[in-house]
């Protein structure tokens, strides 16, 4: 029977949760890197025993940890993220230029073909890559050399490159999402980039339809249909059917189209999950009810999924990296909250149960489906 391994990054360490394919009984191990923020924690799709974790604190900066045995032991690898050349400036919150300065790694995206190759999305926004298992990191500098980069401005969480999407069908294609710049796409392995934000509309920026400047919170795609992208923007849930060249709003009947997380069902490319959050200043669910919303039609029509989730007095948030799916026939869906709960559904969201309730605030959730 298959085994499920859930990798959870929190404000104070990482946790590994394992279960058999029934997904009823869970073993919880951790914290690993206790006391450190683990912004992201992910395994290689090539060798699932190769795990990478982004570990940081305000005191001691950034570390990258790697395990070659499924998390039994860990070794720190390279932690030097040097911007290539003279870094230049982006815009600060007050609109003045600010020199690029590395702060942390938000996203680790292991290659689809090589366990030693990993992309890292960092704050201040840039893309890095390792080809030696994390020992050394080189900037994929074409992104930050895009002509719009001096105008990029941070979102509430900082100027962070928080989402990297790789495309198995087009190995040279990379999508990156940056708050608050937008989505960028490369079709030549990162050498050159173009913004792909047409159709996004953001009232909070001087030109609501600008090419760059949108606070994209997360993007997701189904591996079998990588040209179809789904996006949770600051406000608005969006969809692109052409690799980001244009976007249409699919918020439809959601109770709020603000949120952070978005994910796609493992086997149904038009089944999408979001967690509506009340507003950008009220980072909790509407009406104190924690509801995942599922669309089976690729957007616009959404159904609330509530069974097993708190439906009163719930004021947690679900952050952008904190939702994932497994690959079992009955697709499992998982998400973590800022209140420290990790919820799992073994039936595509119809029913939910907590794996654990009292962790530190959850920053990221990834799931591995193991033989």
């Amino acid at each position, binding site marked *: 029977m298959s085994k499920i391994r859930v990798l959870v990054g929190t404000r104070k360490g990482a946790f590994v949760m394992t279960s058999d394919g029934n997904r009823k009984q869970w073993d919880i191990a951790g914290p690993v890197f206790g006391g450190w923020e683990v912004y992201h924690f992910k395994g290689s799709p090539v060798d699932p025993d190769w795990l990478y974790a982004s570990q940081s604190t305000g005191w*001691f*900066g950034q570390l990258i940890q790697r395990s070659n045995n499924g998390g039994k032991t860990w070794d720190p690898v390279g932690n030097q993220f040097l911007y290539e050349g003279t870094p230049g400036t982006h815009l600060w919150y007050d609109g003045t230029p600010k020199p690029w300065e590395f702060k942390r790694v938000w996203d680790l995206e292991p290659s689809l073909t090589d366990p030693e190759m990993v992309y890292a999305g960092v704050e201040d926004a840039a893309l890095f890559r390792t080809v030696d298992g994390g020992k050394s990191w080189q900037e994929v500098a074409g992104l930050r050399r895009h002509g719009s980069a001096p105008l990029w401005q941070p979102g509430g969480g900082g100027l962070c490159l928080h989402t990297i999407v790789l495309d198995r069908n087009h190995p040279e294609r990379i999508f990156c999402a940056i708050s608050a710049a937008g989505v960028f796409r490369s079709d030549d392995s990162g050498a050159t980039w173009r913004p792909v934000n047409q159709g996004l509309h953001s009232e909070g920026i001087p030109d609501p339809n600008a090419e760059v400047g949108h606070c994209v919170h997360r993007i997701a795609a189904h591996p079998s249909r990588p040209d179809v992208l789904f996006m949770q923007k600051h406000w608005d849930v969006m969809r692109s059917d052409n690799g980001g060249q244009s976007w249409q709003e699919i918020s439809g009947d959601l109770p709020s189209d603000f949120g952070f997380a978005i994910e796609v069902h493992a086997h149904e490319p038009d089944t999408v999950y979001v967690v509506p959050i009340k507003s950008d200043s009220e980072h909790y669910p509407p009406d104190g009810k924690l509801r995942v919303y599922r669309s089976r039609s690729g957007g616009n029509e959404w159904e609330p999924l509530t069974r097993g989730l708190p439906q009163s007095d719930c004021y947690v948030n679900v952050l952008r990296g904190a939702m994932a799916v497994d690959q079992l026939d009955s697709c499992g869906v998982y998400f973590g909250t800022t209140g420290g709960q990790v919820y799992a559904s073994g039936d595509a969201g119809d029913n939910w149960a907590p794996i654990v309730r009292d962790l530190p605030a959850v920053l990221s959730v990834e799931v591995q489906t193991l033989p």
Partner: protein
Amino acid sequence: MIRVVLPAHLRKLARVNGEVKLDVEGEATQCTVLDALEERYPMLRGTIRDHVTKKRRPFVRFFACQEDLSHEAPDAALPEAVASAAEPFLIVGAMSGG
């Protein structure tokens, strides 16, 4: 020989218990002590000072002999008591967080 006390998180990272004892070439300064520390424990690179500029991270302080040496020049000689190993060189994570 120089005695160095690391904060708990960095002891764990470097997989050491208690004090670290280092042989430092030449005069004992913040810079030479940290060079020797990072040579012995490369996983500490970047956690105490910047990889390139060697500037101390803002929430890290250096104490010795009941004094805060954090703002001393990196190449200034450390107190004789540190150089002679009578006193340890303390690397401290600043009190912060609530």
